[in-house]
């Protein structure tokens, strides 16, 4: 399942990061988003194109087009 399908406030674990744009993928990894990282979707915007995610106790915005390319399992 992709990160964009995860229910709000449910904890998920990153399984794969398939983001095609290497620069963005690397940046997300540098921010601490990696395989095995626990992630929670805290909020989704009105058009559900942007979401608020929390990982490593820090909150970030993330676009849905990127979240679709992140494979997760529920923790």
């Amino acid at each position, binding site marked *: 399942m992709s990160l964009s399908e995860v229910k709000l406030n449910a904890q998920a674990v990153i399984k794969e990061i398939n983001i095609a744009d290497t620069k963005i993928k690397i940046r997300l990894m540098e921010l*601490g988003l990696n395989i095995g990282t626990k992630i929670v979707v805290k909020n989704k915007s009105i058009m559900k194109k942007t979401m608020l995610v929390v990982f490593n106790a820090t909150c970030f915005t993330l676009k849905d087009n990127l979240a679709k390319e992140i494979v997760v399992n529920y923790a």
Partner: protein
Amino acid sequence: MRKILIIGNPNVGKSTLYNSLTKSSEHTGNLHGVTVEEKHKVVKYNDEEIDFYDLPGLYSLNSFSFEEEIARDIILKNNAEKIMLVDANSLRKNLYLCLQFLELNIDFKIYINNYDYFKKYKNNLNIEKLENKLNIKCQIINVKKIKINDLDLKISEKHNNFIDFQKNSINLCNYLSKYIKIIKNKYNIDEKTIILALNGVFKDLNKEQIDFIKSLYPDLIFDRYRVIDDVLQDVMTIQKNFVYGLNRADKIILKPVVMTVGFLLCFFASIYLIFFLIGPLIGDGLSYLVNFLLINPFMNFLYSVSSNIWLIEFFSNGVFSSVLTVLSFLPQVCLLFIFLTLLEDSGLISRMAYVFDDFLSIFGLNGKAIYIMLLGLGCNTVSTLATRNMNEKNLRIKTVLLNPYISCMARLPVYVVIASAFFGAKAYFVVTGLYLVGLLVALIVGYVLNKTILRTENNSFILEFAPLRSVDIKHVLNVGKENAIDMMKRIFFIVLGVGVIVWILSHTMFNLSYTSTITDSILFYLADKISFIFAPIGLNSAGIVSALIVGIMAKELLVSTFSISNNVSSIGALITSLSISTSVVHFNLASAISFLVFTLLYCPCVSNLAIIKKEIGTFYMWFAIISQFTIAYLLSFIIYNSIVNSFFYAIIVVMAIVLILSLVIYLIKKIRSKKIACMFCSKNCKK
């Protein structure tokens, strides 16, 4: 002289630390990417001078945006001592940059900020253990209260051994050897080049080598975080549900309806309070005080010692009237900056960026554009620079190009004066309407650019959420004071300087003799010659045209030029004079609205043009000038002709002009593409 660089992730408090250490008042805010260029200041410390540098924030040496590139280059090219400021609440992420420094064997000290907030949520951090594990000196500080004497700034013996690639004494970076070996097995590259490349700095490497090294990054990042987790395992305990950045209030604030309605209400209420209630009261008081204490005594003195009309006119109209009309708006400017600082410091801007990101995506922008637009309400030049925190090139160019459509502070005096002259009690609605027109045009321009020449290829919008904070009133008032000083400088150097030139040009004839009849002057003669261009939009008066020309220098000059032309020295007198047909500068209702719209859109000021040229190049600077003038002209044409002729006529003419312009652009493109094709043809090409 010692140089100390203040380095760290975005929004950890670097600029606040810099301000505390150097007693400066650089722009700070509770937001990612407030600092976009380096600043430095020399301070005395124990009989020696230290040059402190405040750098833009960066998450990694592998730069992602232009501001990170600036910081990275200064760090690597500068043989200076380094202070790493980290936030206790996001230490894991902050240590990533520290680890990269250790890989390059850069010596630095760690200062930990925001520890109170961290402790408040019952989290724990053992500083001694952290020091031992990293083998780096660590100190907890509060950047708002710190004084230079509180910091351990003893000179480090190691800092000169910059990037010598000796192994770290506690072997934290052992994982590097694996990658060095892999790369050396494939390519003949020295160790120094490899380690730099593993940190995003590629020197003397070809594309294949760079691509190969980049392909190792995911594993390398994983290894770096494994080391960081090992370090933090015994050092830090965080409560299970602790989240830095989100607050309970966010459940309400982040609802789009609450945010949109709340922001619009706050904004329009602030405009009303600032420009139509509190601001004018203070402004009138200030004008009275300046008149009473400075201008009247000086003019009385002048009358007593000289009877030279030229001299008296020069001071009363050339010097004082231009200054006084702009000075009246000083309180309004300060109050608006205070409003913007309240938004910035509270952490609301990152929330607005998130909530409005979807909406802005329709126009090819992203949430970060909200911050740029809000800054643009203050000064378009500052907001143009702030686009450096955008990582995508087209997105950045687009944001720079639509930024001047956002009404800056300098345009406000002219809005208030003309709206008060022609709309009386409804002036407030006209001014807020102009803000909305500016925003609407900016969004339409963004949309068109996104669909044509500046398509956003990768709209990633990754933004760290800033925590909600109570606002430091002292800091907010300080911002108001700083902006007052800044505007005073602008008044004295630009408004006064150009105002004097305008006065001289508007009171001098071609034979260089003085004239009290402005219509005989050089300025009006020249303005009259080109005023026919503005006839279709109802602005074919030499007085208005000369103000528009002068306004390109700085928009504050529009009002001061009006007051010189109409020979008045107070806002009240200027407002009255603008509707009198015998005044040099006068309007009717149609031309007043046309002028307001034209002023809102017609051209960035000179300082903004210089920054646009520097940031995105000469081509786009000319693009900004031509496109803005065209849009301003066409919109003013529609408005003016809708009032004096008919809307149908105005639309037909504008559509015809747009059609002709599109055809010309299409033909130019065709011709250019043919020329480019010929450049690649063989010598025998006969095209």
